[in-house]
C-alpha cells in the first residue's frame, strides 16, 4: 500500500470525473469519490488535473467534494467463497448488495468482497521450518463439494515458515502461516489480493494438446477448442451467442467456470442463477453451480464497471488456474466491453480510430486473449484458461472493428449465421465460415481417446458439406431435379448431416450434451449410409428409391432414438441400413434380370 492522497472534484461528465487540488494520484489507482465514497479508478494523470472513471452512477456529485486515494490499483480478493457466488464488475457480491439496498442496486457500497465471518475447515499443509516459494500450497479448504481450494503463497513471496496454524475452522482473515523473508515477516491468511489489470505469473507456457470437450457436436467434432485455447462467437442479435455460452458453461469439461455477463440482460443472469444449482454435472453428480462463479454487469449497470468486469473475471480465472485447475471463462459480450472503452474514450475526447473506437482497442483485446493458455504453474502443476468470447457486431456485419480485431487474437471462430437462426437451425454455427486452428494440434488426442479414424471421418463430413454448398448454388438456379444422382446423394447426405448431426437441441434432455463417442458413432453411421448408397447409385439405382425407404430419416433421428450410453445400438442400426440397402439392390438386380429376359 502506498501513501494516500486527496483531491477535490472539479468537473463531472457522466462516469468521468475531473479532480484538482494538491494531490499525487497514481495512474490506475483506485479512489473513493465524493461523500458517498463511490468507487473509481484513475485513468489519466495530467499536470494540474487527474481524471477518474467512476464505477457507480454519478448523479448528485458536486464540485468540491473530496476524492481520496486508496493507495492501490483496482484489486480483487482471492480466497474461499468465490465459487458459487455472483459478483458485480468490481467483485462486490450482489447478494450483499441486495441485503443492503433491496431489489434495486444502490450506490457507494464498500463491502467485503468475500464473506469474512464464515468459518472454513482448513487443512494446513506446511509446518514450522518449511521453506516456501511463490505458488506453493500452504493449506486446503473444501470450498464447495466439487472444488478443493488450494491456498497458495502469493507470487513474489518466499521464505521460511516461522509459525503455522493447526488444522481447524477459520475465517478467511485468520493467519495460517507466518513467513520470514529476510527481515520482513508475511502473515499469510486464506485470502490474497491481486490487481486485476496485471496477469498473474506462471512458470512457463505449455503446448495445447487436449480439447475442451463441450458435448456440442458441431464444436467438438468440427471446430474443436483446445484447453487453454481461445474462441470467439460472433453473431447478430438472437443468433445464439448466449445459448452457446450457457451450453458450454453447463457441459464443458472444465473444472471451474467463470461466466462474465458483460453488458447483457439481467434475466439471463437470473436464468443461470435459477438453472445452475438444479443442473447436475455429469462428471461428479454435483450441481453445476458448485464449480461456477458469475460476474454480472448487466446493460443498465454503470458502464465503467463493465470495462472492469472482464478483468475481474480473468483474474479470478487465473487464480484457479494457479491451483492447477482447468478453467473456462465465458465473456458475453466482449463487444459491450469494447463499447465501454469507446464511451469512456469519447468522454476523454481522445482521437478515435475506426467507428469511434479508441486506437488501443486491438491492444486491449490482445492483452485479454493473451491471458488464456495452458501453463506450468509456479507450483509446477498444469493449469489452463480457455477463453470463449461472444462478439455482437453492429448490424450483424463481421467487418466491424471488434470482430475483425478479435479475429487476429483467437484461433477458433464459431460464426453464427442469421439465416440459420431464422430457420431455427441451432446451434446456428455456420459450417463454411467457421474454423478451428486447433484441429491439427488435437489430432493425436482424438486418435487415442475417441477413435483412430475420428479426424478422417470429420474431414469427410466437412467435405460433403462443402460440396453441398457448391451444389446449392446451382440448385438455386435450376432446381435439383436435373442433377445427376451422385450429386443428389450429396444433397441428401448433407441434409442428414445438417439435420441429424449439426442441429442439436439444447432443450432436449439427451441431445443437450452428447459424449464424444456418440458423436463419433453418429458420424460413422451417416458416412456408412452415404458410402453404401453411393455404391448402389454407381450401379444405376436412383437415389429416390433409397430415399423412399426412410433410411435417411432414421439416421437423422439417431440423436433421439439412440441413448447417449447405448453404443451397441449403432452396430444394430448399421446392420439394418445394410439390410435395407441390400434388399433394394436385390430387387433391383431382379428387375434388371427380368428386364433383360
Amino acid at each position, binding site marked *: 500500500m502506498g501513501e494516500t492522497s486527496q483531491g477535490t472534484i472539479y*468537473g463531472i461528465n457522466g462516469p468521468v470525473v475531473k479532480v484538482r487540488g494538491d494531490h499525487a494520484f497514481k495512474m490506475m489507482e483506485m479512489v473513493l469519490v465524493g461523500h458517498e465514497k463511490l468507487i473509481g479508478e484513475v485513468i489519466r494523470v495530467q499536470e494540474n488535473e487527474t481524471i477518474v472513471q467512476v464505477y457507480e452512477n454519478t448523479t448528485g456529485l458536486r*464540485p468540491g467534494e473530496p476524492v481520496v486515494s486508496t493507495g492501490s490499483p483496482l484489486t480483487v480478493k482471492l480466497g474461499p467463497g468465490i465459487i458459487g457466488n455472483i459478483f458485480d464488475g468490481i467483485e462486490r457480491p450482489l447478494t450483499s448488495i441486495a441485503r443492503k439496498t433491496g431489489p434495486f442496486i444502490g450506490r457507494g457500497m464498500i463491502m467485503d468482497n468475500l464473506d469474512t465471518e464464515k468459518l472454513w475447515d482448513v487443512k494446513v499443509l506446511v509446518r514450522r521450518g518449511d521453506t516456501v516459494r511463490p505458488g506453493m500450497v500452504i493449506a486446503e479448504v473444501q470450498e464447495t463439494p466439487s472444488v478443493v481450494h488450494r491456498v497458495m503463497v502469493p507470487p513474489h513471496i518466499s521464505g521460511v515458515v516461522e509459525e503455522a496454524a493447526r488444522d481447524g475452522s477459520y475465517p478467511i482473515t485468520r493467519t495460517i502461516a507466518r513467513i520470514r523473508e529476510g527481515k520482513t515477516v508475511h502473515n499469510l491468511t486464506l485470502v490474497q489480493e491481486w490487481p486485476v489489470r496485471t496477469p498473474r505469473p506462471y512458470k512457463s507456457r505449455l503446448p495445447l494438446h487436449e480439447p475442451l470437450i463441450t458435448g456440442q457436436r458441431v464444436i467438438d467434432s468440427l471446430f474443436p477448442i483446445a484447453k487453454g485455447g481461445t474462441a470467439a462467437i460472433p453473431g447478430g442479435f438472437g443468433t445464439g451467442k448466449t445459448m452457446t455460452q450457457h451450453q458450454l458453461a453447463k457441459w464443458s469439461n472444465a473444472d471451474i467456470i467463470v461466466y462474465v455477463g458483460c453488458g447483457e*440482460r439481467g434475466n439471463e443472469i437470473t436464468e443461470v442463477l435459477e438453472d445452475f444449482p438444479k443442473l447436475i454435472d455429469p462428471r461428479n453428480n454435483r450441481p453445476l453451480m458448485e464449480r461456477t462463479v458469475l460476474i454480472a454487469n448487466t446493460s443498465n449497470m454503470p458502464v465503467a464497471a463493465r470495462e472492469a468486469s472482464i478483468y475481474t473475471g480473468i483474474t479470478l480465472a487465473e487464480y484457479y488456474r494457479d491451483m492447477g485447475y482447468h478453467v473456462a471463462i465465458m465473456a458475453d459480450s466482449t463487444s459491450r466491453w469494447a463499447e465501454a472503452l469507446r464511451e469512456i474514450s469519447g468522454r476523454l*475526447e481522445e482521437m478515435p480510430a475506426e467507428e469511434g473506437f479508441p486506437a488501443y482497442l486491438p491492444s486491449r483485446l490482445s492483452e485479454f486473449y493473451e491471458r488464456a493458455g495452458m501453463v506450468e504453474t509456479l507450483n509446477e502443476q498444469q493449469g489452463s484458461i480457455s477463453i470463449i468470447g461472444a462478439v455482437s457486431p453492429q448490424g450483424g456485419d463481421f467487418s466491424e472493428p471488434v470482430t475483425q480485431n478479435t479475429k487476429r487474437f483467437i484461433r477458433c471462430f464459431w460464426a453464427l449465421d442469421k439465416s440459420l437462426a*431464422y430457420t431455427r437451425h441451432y446451434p446456428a454455427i455456420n459450417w463454411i465460415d467457421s474454423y478451428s486452428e486447433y484441429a491439427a494440434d488435437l489430432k493425436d488426442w482424438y486418435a487415442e481417446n475417441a477413435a483412430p479414424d475420428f479426424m478422417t471421418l470429420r474431414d469427410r463430413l466437412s467435405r460433403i458439406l462443402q460440396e453441398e454448398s457448391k451444389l446449392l448454388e446451382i440448385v438455386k438456379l435450376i432446381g435439383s431435379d436435373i442433377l445427376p444422382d451422385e450429386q443428389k446423394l450429396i444433397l441428401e447426405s448433407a441434409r442428414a448431416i445438417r439435420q441429424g448431426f449439426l442441429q442439436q437441441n439444447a432443450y432436449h434432455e439427451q441431445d443437450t450434451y452428447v459424449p464424444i463417442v456418440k458423436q463419433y458413432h453418429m458420424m460413422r453411421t451417416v458416412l456408412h449410409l452415404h458410402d453404401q448408397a453411393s455404391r448402389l447409385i454407381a450401379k444405376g439405382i436412383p437415389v429416390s428409391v433409397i430415399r423412399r425407404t426412410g433410411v435417411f430419416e432414421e439416421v437423422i433421428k439417431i440423436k433421439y432414438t439412440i441413448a447417449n450410453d447405448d453404443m451397441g445400438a449403432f452396430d444394430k442400426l448399421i446392420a439394418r441400413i445394410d439390410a435395407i440397402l441390400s434388399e433394394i439392390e436385390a430387387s433391383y438386380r431382379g428387375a434388371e434380370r427380368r428386364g433383360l429376359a
Partner: protein
Amino acid sequence: MNLEYVGLKEISGPLVVLEGVKDPSFEELVEITVDKEKRLGRIIDISGDVCVIQVFEGTHGISLKNTRTRLLGKPLKIPLSKEILGRVLDGLGRPVDGLGEIYPEKYADVNGEPINPVEREYPRNYIQTGISSIDCLATLIRGQKLPIFSGSGLPHNQLAVQIVRQAKIADEDANNFAIVFAAMGVKHDVADYFKNSFKSSGVLDRVVMFLNLANDPVVERIVTPRSALTAAEYLAFEKGMHVLVILTDMSSYAEALREISSSKGEIPSRKGYPGYLYSDLASIYERAGMIKGRKGSITQIPILTMPNDDITHPIPDLTGYITEGQIVLDRGLASRGIYPPVSVLPSLSRLMKDGIGKGYTREDHPGLANQLFAACAKVQEVRALASVIGEDELSDLDKKYMRFGRAFESAFITQDFNEDRDIIQTLDLGWLLLGLLPREELDRLSPELIEKYYGNPEENESRYRQWT
C-alpha cells in the same frame, strides 16, 4: 440554493451554458425563467463553476440576457400515486388533461435504479394475445420486453391495440392490471387513436398516458419513456399490478438522442448516433421484468419504425441486442393485404421456451412451433427457386410447400382485427396446415406427437382448397 443567476454564457441547440454557478450537482434540476415563462433543465456537465444545462422545453426565445436560472437542489423526479391511472401527463409527468394536479404519495427519480439480477424472478407465465402468429411462434411472456419492429405506414399501432385489447393479463384479479402508454414524437392522430381504442375497450381508467408529441420539445422526449417506466415501476413493484408498457416510437426517441448528442459535439458512432446508444436504450428496456417476492410485473412492448425497413439500422439492431426477441412486420405481406403482417422467420420470443408446452400451453407447442418455422423457411427457399424456374417446373414436394405457404398466410397469419383466437384454436390450426405436407417432412416433431395430432389430410382438402 435560492441564488438566481442572470443571463447565460452560451446557447447551443437545446443546451445552455451557465457560468459562476455555486455548488451545482450532477444531473441537478434547474428552473430557467425566460421573461415570464418557466422552463426546466438538467445539468449534464460540470466543469468548475461552469455548467452545461439541457433545457427540456427547448431554447427557442432564449437569449444570453433574458434568463434567470435557479438550481432546484434535486434530480428530476415525478409525482406518483395511484391516481395517475386514467390521467394524461406530459413527458415530465405534469398533467396536461386539465384535471388538476396529482396528489403525490411519493416522488421518484425518473432514472430509476438497475434491478439487482439476484432479485429478479425469471418470467415464465405466458400472455395469450389471441393472435396466432404471436401466441404460437413468438409467445409473449409476462415480464418480457418484446418490441414490434415495423416500418412507416405499417399497422403496428393496430397490432399494439389488438394486443392490449385481447391480452389476458388480468388473470387472478381484474383490477390488478394497468397500461402505461408513452408517446415519443408521434403525431396527434396516433395518440388519439390509442386513446380512443383504450376508451372503446373500456380500459381508459386503467391507463396512464405520457405524451410527448411530434411538436413537443425534443429534450423532453428523452425523459418521456423514463417517466413512464418510473410510473410503471411504482404501479408494479409498489402497488402489485401487472403493467403493460407501450413505448412508441422508439425511433423518434433515438433521433432525439442523436440530435442532443450532436449539439453537445460528441463523437458519433454509426449513422451519427452516439456511441452510448446501446447503454442508453438498455437503461430503458431493462426496466422490465419481475422481482422476487413482489406481486406485480412490467411487460414492455416498444414500437419502432425501421428507417428504410432496414433491420440492420442501429435503432432496431441495438434494440434487438437488448430486448428478449422481436415481432417483425413486413411490408410485402402488408401490401398483399395481410393483417397482421407478421414476418415469421425473423420474429422471435426468447422467453417462450420456459413458458410454453406441457403444463403451460399444450405439450405439442414447442415442436409444432419449430416445425412451422422450418416449413416457412422451406417455403421461402422454394419461392426463390420458383421465381427462377417457374412454379410449374418445381418438384411435387416443392409444389406442396408452395401450397402450404399460401394457406399458412391466408389462414394462420391472417386474422381479423377483432378476431381473438385462443391458444388451442391456434395450435390446432397449425396442425391442420401441417396436413398439407407429407408426414415424412415433419422432422422436428416426435413420432408420438405426429401420431396424436397429425390429421387426415384428405378429410381437410375442402378447407385447404378454400385457403389456397
